[in-house]
């Protein structure tokens, strides 16, 4: 192997690719070559570094200088100034939003400072397409340790001790799940990985698979050893082509190295994995639906029991875990469950990866120890609300979750506390919302999502959520009545108790939590026909301030509905009954004489 003087880590995660990192890499390589530095400098393309918003980004070691928003044309400077002369290119450094201080190192940036990386330990640090790099940072040692020095029972014991709970949403103790499945005797068992990641606004699992696919393969092999399974599947969304490509590349490499296949590490344990692509159905994230889908059917859930531990894929005992859950396993095996359990808080051990997004300054992928408060995530890591607006709520847990208002920002994030607030940990979507978000519309958004994604098998979800959606549409259109609100609450209460699967059972949560904290917004929509966030368009009223209007007529020209009348040079006015609330007039008015309420 070549020994390089300098390594450059360049983020090639999904978001950075879309921000143009590939041409940055080409430019960088070109410049390196032009300066004859090929043998001294190595460029490593990595998975997501987490702060996609300021991508593409790179880290130049050994110093660890962090450059952000790099463009191909910057590469000449990076090579000439930094690599040749050793001077940092200041204009590419990260600037603190609050005090304009230039920060040189990743660790100095508040976004990264509070994070603790276990799951994402290799993301952004190694090239996910090279198994050698994974091995070089200790990859597959955990598998080796398990196979050569631990019994399956000891592996399960270690996972139990760690207190690791499923990161896919429900938070079921992983060790217990393994134990139940190990207990069953069967000619075939399966290990499955849930990489369906269906929550709208979540991309943790995708980044993990794109940035560190071997960690999942290694963990699944360990799970296979623990429960006595020789086969496994990774069920990935079809919408993640890059993840699929990197994972299948990783599988080939692992097979070539004998880390998958027959008699791994010369033990009598054999294990292999296949990838199965989803095809666009959120419900396939539900475990029984996922298995149905792998079997080649419509992804319709079935009632439990029997649980997958007894009758899973192809009716055989099966363990299904989330991507992030697996990513913790090698760490637990190497460092011991007790060590892992020290991280976090109470029964919520370890870290959690969140996809932080919405009206927040720094959005991206963050990994934090359990027990951190929402405020720390939103303000310290996320850098607070964008554009100086007011915080309104954070939506956590996706369509099964809820909206948490300002009063509870100091709540520690754990499996135990969130449900008391009507939210759940979920799989890691964390959307920050400012005053511009209408909470009724947010509830409507999730109900629309659920209705779109309901498999249609059971009555409460198929018909009940449709009625709930219709009611919410009515309310956001300003046509709601108090009786509608009553019915909405009634159905929300019923569906949760009577639907067949988790999708329907949690479908009312966004409605219930917004009703709990933002009932006044519902009431305003119904009684006052008013949407304070100006999101529900049918309730908007456009008016012209006669004093400010110069009678230029531009608004009249722009109006597609012929709703504006007025003589030239005289104040114009809007006929409310004709106005379709498109906002064109407001944009057209050069004198900001048009208001919306």
């Amino acid at each position, binding site marked *: 192997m070549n020994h390089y003087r300098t390594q450059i880590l360049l983020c090639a*995660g*999904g*978001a950075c*690719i*879309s*921000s143009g990192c590939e041409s940055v890499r080409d430019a960088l390589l070109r410049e390196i070559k032009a300066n004859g530095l090929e043998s001294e400098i190595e460029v490593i393309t990595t998975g997501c570094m987490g*702060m*996609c*918003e300021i*991508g593409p980004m790179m880290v130049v070691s050994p110093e660890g200088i962090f450059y952000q928003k790099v463009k191909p044309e910057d590469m000449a400077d990076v090579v000439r100034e930094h690599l040749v002369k050793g001077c940092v290119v200041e204009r590419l450094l990260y600037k603190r939003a609050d005090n304009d201080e230039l920060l040189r190192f990743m660790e100095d940036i508040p976004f990264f400072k509070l994070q603790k990386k276990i799951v994402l330990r290799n993301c952004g640090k190694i090239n996910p397409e090279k198994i050698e790099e994974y091995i070089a940072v200790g990859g597959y040692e955990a598998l080796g340790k398990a196979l050569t020095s631990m019994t399956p029972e000891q592996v399960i014991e270690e996972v139990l001790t760690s207190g690791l709970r499923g990161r896919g949403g429900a938070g079921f103790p992983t060790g217990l799940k393994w134990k139940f499945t190990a207990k069953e005797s069967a000619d075939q068992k399966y290990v499955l990985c849930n990489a369906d990641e*269906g*929550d*709208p*606004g*979540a*991309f943790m699992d*995708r*980044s993990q698979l794109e940035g560190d696919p071997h960690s999942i393969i290694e963990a699944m092999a360990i799970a296979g050893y623990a429960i006595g399974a020789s086969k496994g599947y990774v069920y990935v969304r*079809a*919408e993640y082509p890059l993840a699929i490509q990197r994972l299948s590349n990783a599988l080939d490499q692992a097979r070539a190295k004998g880390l998958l296949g027959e008699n791994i590490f010369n033990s009598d344990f054999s294990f292999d994995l296949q990838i*199965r*692509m*989803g*095809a*666009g*159905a*959120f419900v396939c994230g539900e475990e029984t639906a996922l298995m149905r*889908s*792998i*079997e*080649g*059917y*419509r*992804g319709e859930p079935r009632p439990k029991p029997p649980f997958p531990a007894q009758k899973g894929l192809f009716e055989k005992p099966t363990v299904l875990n989330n991507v992030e859950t697996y990513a913790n396993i090698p760490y637990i095996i190497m460092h011991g469950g007790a060590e892992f359990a020290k991280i976090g808080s109470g029964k919520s051990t370890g870290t959690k990866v969140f*996809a932080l*997004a*919405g*009206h927040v300054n720094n*959005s*991206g992928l963050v990994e934090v120890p359990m027990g951190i408060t929402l405020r720390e995530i939103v303000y310290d890591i996320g850098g607070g609300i964008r554009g100086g607006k007011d915080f309104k709520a954070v*939506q956590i847990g*996706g369509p099964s979750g809820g909206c948490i208002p300002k009063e509870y920002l100091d709540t520690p994030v754990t499996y135990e506390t969130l449900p008391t607030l009507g939210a759940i940990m979920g799989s890691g*979507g964390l*959307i920050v*919302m400012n005053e*511009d*978000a209408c909470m009724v519309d*947010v509830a409507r*958004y999730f109900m629309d*999502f659920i209705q779109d994604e309901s*498999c249609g098998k059971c009555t409460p979800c198929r018909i009940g959520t449709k009625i709930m959606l219709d009611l919410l549409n009515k309310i956001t259109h300003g046509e709601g009545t108090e009786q509608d609100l009553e019915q909405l609450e009634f159905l929300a209460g019923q569906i949760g108790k009577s639907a067949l699967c988790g999708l329907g059972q949690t479908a009312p949560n966004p409605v219930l939590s917004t009703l709990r904290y933002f009932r006044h917004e519902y009431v305003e929509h119904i009684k006052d026909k008013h949407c304070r966030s100006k999101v529900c368009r049918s309730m908007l009223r456009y008016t012209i301030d006669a004093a400010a209007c110069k009678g230029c007529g531009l608004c009249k020209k722009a109006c597609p509905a012929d709703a504006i009348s007025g003589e030239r040079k005289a104040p114009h006015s809007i006929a409310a009954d004709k106005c379709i609330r498109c906002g064109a007039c407001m944009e057209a008015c050069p004198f900001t004489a048009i208001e919306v309420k």
Partner: protein
Amino acid sequence: MSEKEHTCGCDNALYQELNAFIASVPRTRDSLIPVLHKAQALFGYLPVDLQEYIAKALDVPASEVYGVVTFYTYFTMQPRGRHTINVCLGTACYVRGAKQVVEAFSELLGIKIGETTPDRRFTLTAQRCFGACGLAPAVMINQDVHGRVNPKKVAELLEQYK
């Protein structure tokens, strides 16, 4: 599908590639979805004839194949336009105005989500999050992700795709 259509199918290079794929997987029910993925990758969509062909090849009832195709939104029975516009309607994009972006595309192209313009230039689709939440609202046209799109930028974006 009749014998005759079946044979001319085999002459076709796309069918040949599909046949080769089918031959490479076990003739069991769990091969259905991978085969449909392959077929859609090859043909661009899954018309009824093709579904019936696959049904026969895998010995699965045609009604079941249709049931699977119509269950999963990734599968389409309509031919796609030359360019696929995929607007993210994930939560992050939604709270930053993705709905208005969809509406703008919809209005400008005169089609709804899931439809294709009559000139087959564009197909409009929506997805929930492509992991570019930092760039919300995000729109993917073919393989290119465009971040921070707003309704005003839409016409300009479309201009780039002929």
